[in-house]
């Protein structure tokens, strides 16, 4: 019985994927309508899955609060704030001033702080890279990064150096970096195609065996 359901799931997933994929190549009205319907259904299911994910998030944190695990107070704060935000959003809509204020004065500053941390984190990572993984490619990586920084910063003390470093930065960015990035993008595109096709052909079954 389990085997039958696995096969049926694989056929359903493969058929739905093929309909959407073929609609990009074939100008058939029925195929186009079916593809549109499938994509709209996927968006709806994605939204429903977000709710399931939120329930999962609440469940994990309620478990931590119930077990008085380390950091349970943070979990309690998360659950309370999630309940407040969710209730306000449902009652007054997402355009409401209170809901917008929560995003503007809580979420945005915290997220901006995280982005600012990135600079510190990357500096430390650069040091680790040289200290632990010294090698030809890592050295080239670090020298390129330093040259990029030197070509981007304002030279207040030795302004004459701004131009040569700027030219060097542009040359590195527009010749070497773009060339390398195109090669990487080619591989990534091919990898994405094969990963998708493996799911369509049921070689990969992320929906379970």
């Amino acid at each position, binding site marked *: 019985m389990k085997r039958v359901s696995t096969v049926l799931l694989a056929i359903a997933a493969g058929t739905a994927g093929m309909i959407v994929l073929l609609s990009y190549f074939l100008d058939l009205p029925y195929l186009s309508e079916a593809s549109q319907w499938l994509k709209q259904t996927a968006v709806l299911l994605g939204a429903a899955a977000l709710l399931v994910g939120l329930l999962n998030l609440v469940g994990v944190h309620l478990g931590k609060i119930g077990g008085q695990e380390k950091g349970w107070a*943070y979990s309690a704060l998360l659950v309370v704030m999630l309940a407040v935000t969710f209730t306000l959003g449902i009652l007054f809509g997402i355009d409401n001033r209170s809901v917008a204020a929560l995003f503007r004065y809580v979420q945005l500053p915290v997220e901006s702080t995280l982005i600012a941390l990135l600079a510190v984190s990357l500096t430390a990572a650069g040091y680790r890279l040289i200290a632990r993984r010294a090698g030809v490619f890592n050295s080239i990586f670090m020298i390129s990064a330093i040259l990029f920084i030197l070509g981007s910063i304002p030279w207040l003390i030795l302004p004459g150096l701004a131009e040569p470093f700027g030219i060097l930065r542009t040359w590195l960015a527009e010749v070497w970096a773009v060339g390398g990035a195109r090669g990487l993008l080619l591989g990534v595109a091919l990898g994405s195609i094969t990963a998708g096709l493996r799911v369509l052909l049921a070689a990969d079954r992320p929906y379970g065996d």
Partner: protein
Amino acid sequence: MSVLGGLGLFILVAFIFLMIALALVERRWPARFRPIPAFDALGGATERAVEAGERVHFSLGTGTLLGGEAGPALAGLSTLTRVADAATMSDRPPVVTAADGALVILAQDTIRSAYRRVSAIDRYHANSGRLVGATPLAYTAGIPAVLNDEDASVHLMLGRFGAEGALVADAGQRRQAFTLGGTQDVQSQALLYATAENPLIGEDVFAGGAYLNAGLFHRGSLRTQDLVRVLMVAGVLIATLLKTLGVIP
């Protein structure tokens, strides 16, 4: 059908044919792939975590299943299948996190399937797959707590990551966990190269299944990727030469 549509359909059929044909060829003449140090080290790191009773954390990234960024997450799920199979022996199953509800459900299904394969479904726990945050930075903010609370010694990142991926990798490095990171975005790959101990470059993120022996089809599809890439590079070089010589306008 338009000319471009016909060409696209031809390429699609050729791709599928090559994947199947090379998967069949693989049985008789297995390919030898270049070593990828990150995948070479992954098996040992997972085994050590299982033996030490520590947790494997698997991040499926901050992207969604819908849209063009699903590719690395799907590849991540196929790698998760192999990691989950290896970790089912542990008292502490892997914990998978994502920033998308659909990916969390698929991760739970993947882990449940691994337990079912070894007839130990009673050891499966739904909290093995978790939504940590619904936005990339909310997810990033939640990752250090997951790594610390779950005592993770292996931190795998395979999915869509933006700049925040550097912070997610850094959280693993600060715990001195085995940190492996791969994504599809080129700029984020550069950040992961600096922050993750075991970075994956370019299409390496899609090669996990083939390198972790997920099956002939994975190896066949990797050979297809390589073959098509060689053809495309040859096409670009020939076109450049013809244009330089003035043969084509």
